[in-house]
């Protein structure tokens, strides 16, 4: 069983509004990407974060700018929660020169290493060792930066996760693993991908390593915030790795175009009733943190922002084909 929180970390009202805006920004960005992908504006694959907004948002809210994170194939939400610029993100997803990776990465590989965002990653669990290295680096350089690895439930079956957590535990590294349990790895349910011993609580995968473990409602941004705050606090104080499971759901297919044949009856509706982008504004309005007008204004603002980001992406130039030969090495040697 996961450890219980002894003291709840509570976001300020300002932070609560900020988190709402972040979740809304992710939702709006993703929804527009979905539509534009359907209109064949976007090349390649698209894995959307819709439904999981509370996870990245709650975690990133407690991080400092100097902290590190690694992400997955489903990375837009992590980027936005981290504060990356939706304009450069959109441009990257459109394959444009003005994107974060100058069009070389696309949706699955957005990165802003300067900002501590060490990259989305197309390989399941591929980012966990990298985050472990960032945590090691922080420790060796004597800073108190922490490193967060986001990954899906599926990544817990990859050796890379285990090797990393084992190493982080031996070396007491400030590594935080966020398991985003959205009930599926591609089209296969967690019950098919993990043994029964884990179904109630995937953080049991962190048990051998003595990781601090918590399982939280991944549709509740404040629950995520709370667990993340504790994990980050521990990491900053040299208390070693944590594993936090956010239990939630994705409302879109594994990737756009997925027929979603695998969902059980009523499953979608059940989770949809917990949709954080629906429930959280209601709650904040109920609790008097936000007025309905402010919420409407926020929606309008975010919509405008994303409109502009997409306009920018559309109008940006494709990279010059010759750039394909550049960027491989820092010290020259780009070859034939």
């Amino acid at each position, binding site marked *: 069983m996961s450890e219980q929180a002894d003291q709840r970390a509570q976001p300020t009202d300002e932070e609560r509004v900020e988190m709402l805006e972040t979740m809304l920004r992710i939702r709006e960005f993703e929804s527009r990407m979905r539509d534009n992908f359907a209109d064949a504006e976007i*090349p*390649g*694959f698209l894995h959307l974060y819709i439904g999981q907004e509370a996870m990245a948002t709650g975690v990133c809210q407690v991080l400092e700018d100097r902290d590190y994170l690694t992400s997955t194939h489903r990375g837009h939400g992590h980027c936005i929660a981290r504060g990356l610029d939706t304009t450069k993100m959109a441009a990257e997803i459109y*394959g*444009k020169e003005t994107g974060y*990776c100058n*069009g*070389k*990465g*696309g949706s*699955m*590989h957005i990165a802003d290493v300067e900002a501590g965002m060490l990259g989305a*990653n*197309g*390989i*399941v*669990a*591929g980012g966990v060792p990298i985050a472990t290295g960032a945590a090691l680096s922080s420790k060796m350089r004597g800073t108190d930066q922490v490193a967060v690895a986001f990954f899906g439930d*599926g*990544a817990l*079956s*990859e*050796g*890379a996760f285990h090797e990393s957590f084992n190493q982080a535990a031996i070396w007491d590294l400030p590594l935080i693993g966020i398991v985003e349990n959205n009930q599926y*790895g*591609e*089209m*296969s349910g967690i019950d*098919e*991908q*993990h043994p029964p011993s884990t179904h109630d609580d995937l953080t049991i995968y962190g048990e051998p390593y003595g990781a601090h473990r918590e399982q939280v409602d991944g549709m509740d941004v404040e629950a995520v915030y709370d667990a993340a705050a504790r994990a980050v606090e521990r990491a900053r104080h040299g208390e070693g790795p944590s594993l936090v499971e956010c239990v939630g759901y994705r409302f879109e297919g594994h990737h756009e175009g997925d*027929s979603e*044949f*695998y969902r059980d009856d009523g499953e979608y509706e059940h989770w949809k009733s917990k949709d954080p982008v629906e429930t959280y504004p209601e709650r904040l309005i109920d609790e008097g943190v936000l007025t309905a007008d402010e919420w409407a204004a926020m929606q309008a603002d975010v919509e405008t922002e994303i409109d502009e980001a997409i306009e920018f992406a559309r109008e940006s130039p*494709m*990279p*010059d*084909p*010759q*750039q*394909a*030969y550049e960027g*491989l090495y820092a010290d020259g040697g*780009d*070859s*034939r």
Partner: protein
Amino acid sequence: MSLASRETEEMAVRDVINQTLDEEMERDERVYIQGIDVHGRGGTSNILKGLDEKYGRERVRNTPISEVSIVGSALGAAATGMRPVVEIMYCGFLGVAGDQLLNQVAKMRYMFGGKLDLPLVIRTKNVMGANAAAQHSQALHHWLAAIPGLKVVCTSTPEDTKGLFKAAIRSNDPIMLFEHGSVYNETGQVPVEDYTFEIGEAAVEREGEDVTVVATQAQLWNALEAAEQLGEEGISVEVVNPRTISPLDTETIAASARKTGRCVVVDDTPLSYGTQSQIAADVSEEAFFDLDFPVQRLGIPDVPTPFSPSLENEILIDTDDIVDAILTLA
């Protein structure tokens, strides 16, 4: 065996794979499938669709996302009486199972004195031109061919897909079977009867006199198109499909080059240490005194595959590139 004499039907590559697996599973109950997400839609390219329903989920096994164990457990099963056909969704994920491929699958038989059979097929796909970016877009058959002990087969046409798949599944050796995402929907005539193509034998797909083009997978389709175009201009192009790239049928390839005196090699692996270089080195040696020009290599420049269409198109080889390469030798 020419197509002309046999009953054939028009089929897409993807359907050929499905049908062939179906027939082989029907024929031999030791043949089974394992891989990620092979149930339901039938794997990442829907190739396996329907097999789980027909043969049950014990013989079409959904694995966890664990490539080491997917490959390694198939090896153990192959060593103990089963005949696994593994799906690795994208060839880029082979690296996760790197040790099992390099040190276990490839070495087990030899290291143990040649005393066991390892009837193991690992299917995967090369992907280029799908804007899938660096980790999901690459061709890696050269990387596996660089490991002695793995036979590496590259499928291309509906006809060779059937013949090579059947041969691979019936073989008692571990075989890496590379499909190519760009040809799944290509169609062609396929003999209806049961047949196998010898692993290790190349095929002359089109006869010609002036220049030899050696081409694999999607590039074979481009090469045949280039040959067609140049034929109209009076240049006679012979097109050779290696089919197996390890062991390579150097004899057939070099014989063609000796005949024409000119050779172009086209493949989706990188220009450095790719398949092209191996074939070019072999041809340069074996046809040395008959070559009029240096062997030309067309391949992907030595960079990971960029995402943006404008960048990816720049590095891809298309029919025009092949035509141009042939013309430089004229």
